[in-house]
């Protein structure tokens, strides 16, 4: 194995401040809630203190958003809205290095991922949607589709800035105003984004960002002044929100959990497939709703593929998220680490064969070594439940029909992968898999032009593309 000298990114670039305040009606203000301390999951040190919203703050923010919608944003010509959103895209790009370092500090993800994926894709989402603002009549949803009003948005901790972009960009382009709640453990980049939004001179109240825990999210989505709710997170919380909005008339979109099958056929280029499997499950420590967490491999190549996979996974470098050579960073929180440990124990107890990368673990921080379970059966919890960590469950199949049956044997339906050299088989599989995104001979690709979202209990509604606009228009 190669030895690498440390190549840490400079943490000063993050411009970390001792305290951050919420963004309400165009100003940074103290919240009425108990301040939270956000922690660097790689070191367990406190990074900053962040104010959180009390119910009264949520109320003020929703009212500010309503005013901004009625007086300014909702009636502004699309071409003008577009220019504000273009500004945000550009300013994210200008501060991309700072945002990437801050994201890695707060979230624990490797700097190469925040630098190469999260931040540029966030900027791209604003750039893409900005252009829609004055072209909504071409979206196929009627000649002059109207915005919904005030959107309440709740996002997860796995891609903090990127999820904020996925939510804000289409909402703003369609003429809605927003109150957004970032995740409790990762509020920092959203608040820097608020600074960008302020510098981009968006009218006060158009975007409000209120940190806090689940209680703030519940307060927000249930606020009677909210017309539209968008949530990305766990299926359990998604169901809770759908239930609590029943009868309210609020428009709802949900992007929830997954248990994606990554299907490898015997004619696949195995080395290439191994790279795709690794990317599918170890990208972002497996904290990805569309992670390829169930590997379905054709029996005749299973042993060979697993050998290659273990060899490759052994070379993944786990450690300091700020090191540019790091492949696998920190688990975002102790709570999540406990959940991963619990599910991994269940896999062992239920008789699956565990293999864990021998990579050294840092002596502090929340880390979990890449793990592959073989001999997994469909009934095991590790084959059914979302682990949301760097843990892969391997099952086998003999025929394409069996692969489809096993892949679809889940209440989820967010994503799937196919690895084969045969074009007709790719299209046959893509047609049969009940999932919102199908990656063939690749995995975990995201683009603002490509709609993303789930079937069944992975949620409803799409983000990205022309299809994604529907979520924020009164159609």
């Amino acid at each position: 194995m190669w030895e690498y000298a440390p190549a840490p990114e400079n943490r000063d670039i993050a411009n970390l401040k001792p305290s951050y305040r919420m963004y309400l009606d165009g100003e940074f203000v103290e919240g009425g809630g108990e301040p939270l301390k956000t922690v660097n999951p790689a070191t367990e040190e406190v990074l900053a203190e962040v104010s959180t919203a009390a119910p009264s703050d949520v109320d003020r923010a929703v009212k500010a958003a309503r005013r901004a919608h009625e007086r300014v944003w909702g009636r502004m010509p699309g071409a003008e809205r577009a220019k504000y959103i273009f500004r945000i895209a550009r300013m994210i790009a200008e501060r991309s290095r700072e945002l990437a370092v801050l994201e890695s500090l707060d979230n624990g993800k490797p700097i190469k991922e925040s630098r190469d994926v999260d931040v540029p894709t966030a900027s791209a989402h604003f750039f893409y949607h900005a252009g829609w603002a004055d072209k909504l009549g071409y979206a196929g949803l009627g000649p002059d589709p109207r915005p919904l009003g005030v959107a309440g948005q709740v996002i997860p901790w796995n891609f903090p800035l990127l999820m904020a972009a996925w939510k804000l960009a289409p909402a703003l382009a369609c003429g809605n105003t927003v109150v957004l709640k970032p995740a409790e453990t990762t509020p920092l980049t959203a608040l820097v984004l608020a600074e960008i939004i302020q510098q981009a001179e968006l009218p006060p109240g158009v975007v409000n960002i209120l940190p806090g825990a689940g209680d703030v999210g519940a307060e927000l989505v249930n606020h009677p002044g909210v017309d539209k709710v968008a949530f990305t997170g766990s299926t359990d919380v998604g169901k809770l929100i759908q239930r609590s909005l029943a009868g309210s008339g609020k428009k709802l979109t949900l992007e929830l959990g997954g248990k994606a099958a990554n299907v490898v056929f015997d004619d696949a280029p195995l080395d290439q497939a191994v790279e795709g499997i690794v990317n599918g499950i170890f990208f972002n420590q497996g904290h990805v709703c569309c992670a390829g967490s169930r590997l379905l491999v054709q029996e005749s190549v299973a042993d060979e593929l697993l050998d290659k996979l273990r060899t490759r996974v052994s070379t993944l470098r786990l450690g300091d998220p700020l090191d540019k050579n790091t492949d696998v960073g920190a688990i975002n929180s102790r709570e999540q680490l406990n959940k991963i440990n619990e599910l991994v124990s269940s896999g062992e107890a239920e008789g699956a064969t565990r293999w864990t990368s021998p990579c050294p673990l840092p002596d502090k921080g929340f880390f979990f070594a890449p793990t592959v379970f073989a001999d997994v059966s469909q009934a095991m919890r590790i084959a059914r439940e979302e682990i949301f960590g760097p843990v892969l469950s391997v099952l086998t199949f003999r025929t394409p029909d069996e692969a489809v049956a096993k892949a679809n044997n889940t209440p989820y339906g967010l994503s799937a992968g196919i690895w084969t050299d045969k074009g007709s088989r790719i299209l046959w599989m893509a047609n049969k898999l009940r999932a919102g995104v199908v990656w063939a001979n690749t995995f975990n690709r995201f683009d603002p032009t490509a709609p993303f979202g789930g079937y069944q209990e992975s949620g409803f509604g799409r983000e990205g593309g022309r299809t994604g606009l529907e979520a924020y228009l009164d159609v």
Partner: protein
Amino acid sequence: MSERLSVAKTYKLYIGGAFPRSESGRSYQVRDSKSAFLANAAQASRKDVREAVVAARKAFGGWARATAYNRGQVLYRVAELLEGRREQFVTEVAASEGVPLKRAQSIVDGAIDRWVWYAGWTDKIATVLGASNPVAGPYFSFSVPEPTGVVGVLAPQSSSLLGLVSVVAPVIATGNTAVVVGSQDRPLPAITLSEVLATSDVPGGVVNILTGRTAELAPWLASHADVNALDLAGAPESMTAELEKSAANTVKRVLRAKPAEPDWAAAQDISRLRAFLETKTVWHPMGV
């Protein structure tokens, strides 16, 4: 010579292409707008709902994968057969809805034309809603609409035929299968429609029609884990919140209804087609 006595029809349920009575053995009296007895209709039970969902699930794979052209022809064939039974439907609609003959005729004409309209959509909706995605990288990416699955449909309560057709046709046009609860007090046109479906080329199980008490049957549809979506068009307003709550347990897609029934004679848009479609995005690398 005395006038000939007509042969009265027994109105039954329509499940999996067959016409069973309710397993519960129950029936209820259907009356016209002036309270005169029209017929007994089967009063479906929870078990009938479950049988219908099983039939709809079984039919889903084949119907979803039928070519769009084929589905278009099948829907058009329904219009053809409806046209052939026009007089029967006019009589039933007039009796059920208490409208003059002329009005009943225009309602039935509207229902036939609506089948034709949706028949023409089957092979166009993917062009209109699908996309080639210009992603920033060496990948070919496209998005296609796909049917959501089994849709529970609470048919409109007032408009016994045109309203019914307006909610059922868009569901099956895109490849979904349906479990329909017909108008509670005006169920006869729904059952006669099922006779049309049974003799057209719509495969058994694609549309299943139940009659009975909407308030009794709707909760079982809303909570059934093998139902993917719910159309609340004919739901009693007092129940919609509860039904939405049950639907949340399996993250069903729910198409809500406005408190007042819409004018079904008005031109339709594609929102009912969109409501029960998923979008699937497929990626593949480009290279040599």
